[in-house]
């Protein structure tokens, strides 16, 4: 087994950032969600996962930081074996991977700033977080993240007072707090209006371009895929169907992935 680099936060250039090999997931009820899925992701990519509902997109994204425990296969994070690492090492890998969810997954009764601060739980000592004695530096970091997403004035609102788009931006702020080396976004815009979808994906694209953070994102709408993806992988019934540049996803490919009855639905006019 290679030395556990992420523990020292050392990024060795000769290691691929994320390498997924022969990943399988069979749920206890017998459903095979993933079957022999392999792919890699490197610096600076905006990798979009497409596929029908139930094709295994969510399972795949959640296997990477082991929110879902894969049945077999191998996941390497900067050369370290994610699936066999200890609990504390897993914590360190997880804090390096920001995650954004379709349902935002914020604690609705808590304040916005508290939700954003939870992004630092992998960094601060246990007693600090349990007592809620967040240092000033962390609070400033949280306020800066919110400001970057245009929510500076919402810091002390309760999350349930925010609109969907605002909540998703809080979700991104939480991910930013992790100083992520990768952002995984599981259908980040599926619950939002098309216009808001572009705003959210725009924020992700900005992070991708300006800070060189790779994005691994599942999307539903083909026009969004074409607009934002640098590379696309497609899943069908848990199997990898396609891995290539977004421009190669044409109507024929699209029907292969989504089935003959599928129609290409546009999320919204794309503002180029």
């Amino acid at each position, binding site marked *: 087994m290679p030395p556990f680099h992420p523990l020292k936060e050392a990024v060795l250039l000769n290691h691929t950032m994320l390498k997924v090999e022969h990943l399988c997931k069979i749920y206890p009820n017998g459903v095979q969600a993933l079957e022999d899925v392999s792919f890699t992701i490197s610096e600076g990519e905006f990798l979009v996962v497409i596929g029908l509902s139930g094709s295994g997109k969510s399972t795949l994204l959640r296997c990477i930081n082991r929110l879902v425990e894969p049945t077999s296969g191998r996941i390497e994070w900067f050369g370290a074996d994610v699936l066999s690492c200890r609990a504390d090492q897993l914590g360190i890998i997880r*804090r390096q991977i920001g995650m954004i969810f379709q349902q935002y997954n914020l*604690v609705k009764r808590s304040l916005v700033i508290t939700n954003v601060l*939870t992004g630092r*739980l992998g960094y601060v000592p246990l007693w600090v*977080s349990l007592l809620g004695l967040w240092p000033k530096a962390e609070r400033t970091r949280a306020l800066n993240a919110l400001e970057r997403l245009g929510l500076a004035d919402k810091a002390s609102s309760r999350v349930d007072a925010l609109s969907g788009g605002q909540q998703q931006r809080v979700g991104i702020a939480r991910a930013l707090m992790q100083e992520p080396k990768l952002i995984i976004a599981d259908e980040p815009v599926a619950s939002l209006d098309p216009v808001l979808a572009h705003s959210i994906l725009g924020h992700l694209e900005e992070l991708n371009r300006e800070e060189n953070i790779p994005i691994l994102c599942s999307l539903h709408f083909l026009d969004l895929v074409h607009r934002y993806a640098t590379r696309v992988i497609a899943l069908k019934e848990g199997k990898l169907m396609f891995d290539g540049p977004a421009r190669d996803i044409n109507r024929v490919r699209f029907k292969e992935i989504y089935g003959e009855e599928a129609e290409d639905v546009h999320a919204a006019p794309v503002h180029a």
Partner: protein
Amino acid sequence: MFMAIARASGVRSVGRAVLLSILIPGLGQIYEGQRARGMGILLSVFITSLVVAWYGVWIWIVTPLVVWLWGVWDVARAEHRSIIVPTVTILLMSYAIGWRVAEINFSALTHNIDRAAVVLGPMVRPNLIEARAETQRAFVTIEVPCSENPPSGQRAYADLELTASAGCGQVGDVINVTGSGFWPEIESEIWWEDAIGEKLHLLEKGRIVKVETDAHGSFTSTVVIPQMRSGTGQEANLDEPLPERFVVIQKRPIGGYKITENGIRVANGILETLSLALVATTFALFGALPLGFLAARNLMDGSAASLTIYYGVRTVMSALRSIEPLIMAIVFVVIVGLGPFAGMLAIMIHSVAALGKLYSESIEAIDPGPINAIWATGARWSEVVRYGVMPQAMPSFISYTLYRWDINVRSSIIVGFVGGGGIGAWLFQWIVLADYRAVGASFVAIVLVVMALDYGSARLRERIV
């Protein structure tokens, strides 16, 4: 054996199944592969027959017969039949036998109206408040039996003056007493008091003797000297002259009302009950919180070890919950003695288990999304609980705890009956002593407190959730 042959032949015929069902209830279904259905029919017939035999209500032998026949009919039909017929038959039988066993007899409610009046009459005049009054007291000494130097039979202090027709007498002698200087036109109590201060109402034809003073504050009373020294033991010497007393007590209202002595006792009891329930609930809260987390499946399904803890905690809690606080109180009274502490322990332990379960259920009901999101930041278990679970579960924790306090107030009243302190302990004594005015008073207090609590906790819960 027959079945084995039938199976081995590989042929399953409806006729054979019907025959089997006629022989033994449910056997046909088992033969057809509907094992649960067949066993159900067999057990129903067996158990209902036993019940009928046990209670000797032979008419209900109809029930197992109906179930048996239904089983035969059921197996003869290819499609799945509804089980409504046997279910209703069994329910009807259970109901009829239950009616008998419970000895339901509504006419008993009206048989003892006069006895009920003795109990209910005083209860509607609860002993809580009384008119404020002042009291004055006077006595004259009468020696029983007479010695050589009997007292004068006269006594005066301030304005009050009592004169007896004789200063001494035998038990049974008639004595006239006149009094003057008393408060006018007031019904006054008359007591006989022996040498050691034991008091006795004087009776005349079974009624308590009372005298009414006239407009000038005077009265005359005729009394028979009562036997006071009977039953005082071997030393009782009826021949030894001792000073006994004829006592007059007058009371008159001075305006306004005050809480009676009994009312104060009720108030103290209620206060004790409330604080007992409050302390028990608070302690239970701290005991139940960790248990609630350990008994929440969505937090504990991470590994085999944590699942073992989950099942262990669940089992212990449901065992504790099945023991009523009343029973626990009996045990704790033996251990720590009579009083509120025993009641508090009993209620606390029951509440730990009950609250633990409610807490765990509210944890299981929370939105799992934020929990996943917080795990994904690299947080530890305790941090997930602190930032993901607590904020979501807090409103129902508070609501359940308030509700439990509400329940605990009521159950601490019951616990008082077996020595667990509070108003219940007093109530039990008053019932035993047949002091139904005091019982009525505690009912009033209990109803008021429980209603106030009900209302208050409902309002609080509304605001939190």
